[in-house]
């Protein structure tokens, strides 16, 4: 049985490797210093989708992403690794969304996919917010079951069998299709780009990207429709304006402060200073910190 697989992915600033230049002198974040990357858990999700496609020939993988127009990069990345196409949801009124408004917008997008879906797979959480909320919220909006913290997904006889990673162990669950799965970072790492697919899709663009290109590229995309990446806005997903963006977000950010830890006056020792180390140990024993 071939599967219609939807992969949810987000382009995020790389918050894991925040270097010294990532914070400006005034203490705010220098977003420009943080590269935009494919959210790590979403790559694990893509790999699970690719494994399902390998196991079920004829399956298709559609990547759905919401963000800035440059998120088209996410769809290309999926195409390079074995995906079949994607939708970039981008529109000004969608901005400022919290997880609830985001999940509504994405659920509307999934509802409008022309070919439908059998299984929706996303990463557990995105590293810019670490909330892990959008996956289960999409499941609720689409009235589908959800399986979170998935490490391995297989499908047979219209049922998914999923291994879940729990705090102190694991569980294996079975769930009929369709459903929403969120995949943890401990699942298989995503396969690298395939050189042949990179050649095939390196000119894939959204209509707005195509506008700025020359006639030769326009002619190329016209002759090869698989190179056109869908770009949708609020109208395409028939979204209720009350439920998107800032307006559709019940949570509001009251204040944001930079994290500054109170520096202490430290006593400094050299690793080779035997007497100093012994004094330190004695001091800790005397103070009943150890011993």
């Amino acid at each position, binding site marked *: 049985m071939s599967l219609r697989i939807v992969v949810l992915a987000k382009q995020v600033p790389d918050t894991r490797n925040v270097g010294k230049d990532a914070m400006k002198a005034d203490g705010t974040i220098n977003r420009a210093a943080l590269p935009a990357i494919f959210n790590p858990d979403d790559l694990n999700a893509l790999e699970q989708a690719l494994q399902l496609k390998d196991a079920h020939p004829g399956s298709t993988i559609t990547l759905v992403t919401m963000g800035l127009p440059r998120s088209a990069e996410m769809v290309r990345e999926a195409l390079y690794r074995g995906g079949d196409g994607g939708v970039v949801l981008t529109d000004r009124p969608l901005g400022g969304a919290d997880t609830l408004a985001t999940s509504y917008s994405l659920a509307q997008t999934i509802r409008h996919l022309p070919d439908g879906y059998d299984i929706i797979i996303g990463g557990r959480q995105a590293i810019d917010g670490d*909330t892990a909320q959008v996956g289960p919220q999409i499941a609720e909006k689409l009235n589908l079951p959800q399986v979170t913290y998935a490490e391995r997904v297989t499908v047979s006889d219209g049922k998914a069998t999923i291994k879940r990673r729990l705090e102190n162990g694991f569980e294996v669950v079975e769930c009929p299709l369709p459903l929403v799965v969120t995949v943890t970072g401990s699942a298989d790492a995503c396969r690298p780009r395939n050189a042949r697919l990179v050649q095939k899709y390196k000119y894939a663009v959204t209509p707005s990207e195509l506008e700025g290109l020359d006639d030769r590229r326009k002619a190329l995309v016209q002759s090869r429709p698989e190179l056109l990446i869908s770009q949708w806005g609020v109208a395409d997903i028939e979204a209720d304006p009350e439920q998107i963006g800032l307006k559709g977000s019940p949570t509001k950010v009251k204040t944001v402060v930079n994290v500054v830890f109170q520096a202490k006056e430290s006593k400094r020792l050299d690793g080779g200073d035997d007497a100093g180390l012994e004094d330190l140990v004695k001091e800790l024993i005397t103070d009943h910190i150890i011993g």
Partner: protein
Amino acid sequence: MQDKNNLIVYCEWDGSRVADVSLELLTKGRQLANARGIQLEALVIGSDLDDVESQLFPYGVDTVYKIDDPRLFPYTSLPHASAVINLFREIEPEICLMGATTIGRDLGPRVSSCLHSGLTADCTALEIGDHTDAVTKTEYHNLLYQIRPAFGGNIVATIVNPEHRPQMATVREGVMRKEIIDQDYEGFVKDLDPAKYVDPESFVVKIIEREVEASKVNIKGAPIIVAGGYGVGSKENFKLLFELADVLGGEVGASRAAVDAGFVEHDRQIGQTGVTVRPKLYIACGISGQIQHIAGMNESSIIISINSDPEAPINTIADYVITGNLEEVIPRLIKYYKKNSK
């Protein structure tokens, strides 16, 4: 006694005990309920819940809601979500707290989506306060401030849900402290009929295999922690840390980088995405001090940093900075400890 607009904690049940994280939230919930002048409620969904209230009342719970059915343990998303949603429609809580666990982070978003209420994940502090909308100038009183790190821990945001109820938040284990307020505290028990609250169509996910064991590691309660970072270099080198922890009677912890590198298991991870600890002695070995890590240990009484880099960021919050290699420093500390302790 008012039945609506209270503070409710969804309590996780492992088959015989209420999870620590839930008891920590009840402790915090009691303080917040006092500040608001409302009741503290606990909801337990599972099976064999006969005397669960005796575990909850000492934390100052006014009402325990129980939904007891063999099909409700172990946890599965949809049946628990339908029970929580149906109960919340009836009792309309003002605030709902859940553990930021594989259960709470699965259940919370499903419930919040259905009730269209805001949810803030992984809060590190919760307070009651007022809020004025920057645009409409509308004033709101006594909102739940949901305080959480964002952007990889580089900023801390205070989130509010002005218009929607319940105000929902999840909190990781170890972030709040659990504290019994009164061993003899007595509240009410409301045994709810599962048939009335749990959607019969919701049993679609079947658990076919399950292996969960009690955590072997008790980082949270350890008075002394020897923690290693990426700078430890290898799984092999971590043995030094285990040796030191063993001699001092402590536990071994790790930064996310060390866990990601596979040096030690995940349940030793300290920091925003791991456990929050407050030992009396924290020895950071080869830990550079990413903000996410510091947020999970900076309340330790004494911090010693052992690092070959004298400029490691963690050194600024350390009481003692030892500049050198772990291989030379740790054996010396062990030697001098053995020599000087009785």
